[in-house]
């Protein structure tokens, strides 16, 4: 009996809380806030916050056309594959000190790093399967962008692993739960002197990884007619837009967990102060943690994505690559060296 209960519980975890529904709502909400902020920065009123929801449901209502040259199975499966990978990715990121052991035990930082590849690969496969020349060009630009963001991401994760690992036997530690616990005791990693350049580097990587404005040469609607999504219409396109939203959520929550993990410690004391006990306290503190996480994500989006979107113009793919492999990787390498030699 408890086996079924257990299975249901885990299914609920996958589908409801940190899984599909949570990602769907907060992902698109984050996207809406981002668009609103960008508009406000250009002195425009900007679309309503729920605009991405309207876009998504409208796209679901529209007719889906599969071009004759396309490979139908890949054309329809690609967005779903990307969505599945992103939802699973979101499961691995703990919410401050509350996490589901069954999930966070299964994967560590390197697996997360690799899981970020799957949505990119899914959009590439989707674009390639349509066979349109715009998709061909968009696909190669998307690959170069992923390539560009890979180096700084690796550097940052290695330096974080080194700092956190110092207190564990292996000398390195890649599991997210341990990183958060470390921050609970030693204060958020942002306060760690050596890791500040790494934090900045990670912040600069977020727009690149999610394909937001200055680095969206892959889906440039003006030059290559929405790149890989040129032939998509209707529900698959809606799912791709949803993927974009959830990816923003994942990247920002990864940033918050890696560098602002320590803020969670206050929640326990707060709930205890209010005098709740037992499961109610747990429920409330989980709720508080999620709200705090979402708030921090919004702040990070505001700074990392919207501000950058409002003030910069789209870069050429070659400039994107050069920017990431010189400026951002330099920062991350600096922090790795600092951390390595005992700062």
């Amino acid at each position, binding site marked *: 009996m408890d086996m079924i209960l257990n299975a249901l519980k885990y299914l609920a975890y996958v589908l409801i809380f940190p899984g599909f529904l949570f990602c769907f709502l907060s992902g698109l909400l984050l996207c809406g806030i981002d668009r609103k902020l960008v*508009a406000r920065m*250009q*002195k*425009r*009123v*900007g*679309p*309503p916050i729920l*605009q991405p*929801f*309207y*876009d998504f*449901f*409208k796209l*679901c*209502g*529209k*007719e*889906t*056309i599969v071009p004759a040259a396309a490979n139908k199975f890949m054309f329809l499966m690609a967005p779903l594959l990307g969505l599945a990978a992103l939802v699973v990715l979101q499961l691995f990121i703990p919410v401050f000190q509350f996490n589901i052991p069954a999930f966070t035990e299964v994967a560590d930082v390197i697996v997360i790093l690799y899981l970020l590849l799957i949505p990119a690969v899914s959009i590439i496969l989707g674009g390639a399967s349509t066979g349109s020349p*715009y998709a061909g060009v968009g696909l190669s630009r998307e690959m170069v962008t992923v390539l560009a963001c890979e180096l700084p991401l690796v550097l940052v994760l290695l330096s974080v692993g080194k700092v956190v690992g110092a207190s564990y036997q292996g000398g390195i530690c890649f599991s997210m739960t341990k990183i958060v616990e470390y921050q609970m005791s030693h204060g958020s990693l942002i306060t760690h002197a050596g890791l500040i350049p790494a934090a900045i580097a990670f912040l600069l990587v977020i727009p690149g990884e999610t394909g937001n404005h200055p680095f969206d040469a892959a889906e*440039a*609607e*003006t030059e*290559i*007619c*929405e790149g890989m*999504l*040129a*032939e*998509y*219409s*209707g529900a698959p*396109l809606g799912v791709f837009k949803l993927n974009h939203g959830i990816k923003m959520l994942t990247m920002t929550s990864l940033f918050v967990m890696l560098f602002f993990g320590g803020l969670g410690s206050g929640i326990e004391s707060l709930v205890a102060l209010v005098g709740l006990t037992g499961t109610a306290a747990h429920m409330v503190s989980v709720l508080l943690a999620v709200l705090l996480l979402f708030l921090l994500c919004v702040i990070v989006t505001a700074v990392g994505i919207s501000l950058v979107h409002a003030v910069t113009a789209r870069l050429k793919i070659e400039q994107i690559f050069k920017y990431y492999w010189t400026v951002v990787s330099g920062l991350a390498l600096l922090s790795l060296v600092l951390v390595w030699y005992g700062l």
Partner: protein
Amino acid sequence: MFKKLIAESTGKSPWLFHINAGSCNGCDIELVSVLTPRYDAERLGFKLTGSPRHADIVVVTGPVTQQSLNRVLRSIEQVPDPKCIVTMGSCPQSGNVFRGSYSVAGPLSKYVHVDVDVAGCTPKPEAVIDGLYLATQILAEKRKEMKK
């Protein structure tokens, strides 16, 4: 619930695809100026997209020259249903001053059912927004018919 949501949001996020069928660019810059801070069509959800596959409303400017005729028809054909065709300015409706010239292939309504005409030789941005707003309502009705 899902159906109601879709029906309600069809009119709320109209994406535009702009086809220049040989226009003098007067209407083209006017259409783009609709998205600038002063008139800001984005607050109604309008967004210019790059490919006809993403579009709901096709905005055609220019007197549909001979050269651009089959390209325009091909692009309009590739827009998924429910779709609306809006002609902007006098040229697509009648060929305006270019009517009768050897290279003008006649008003757009000869080939495709035009939903909304926004008259004016470069109509004012407010007029364009009104036209597009009307188009979103027509879109909502078309969605209902399509559903049946």
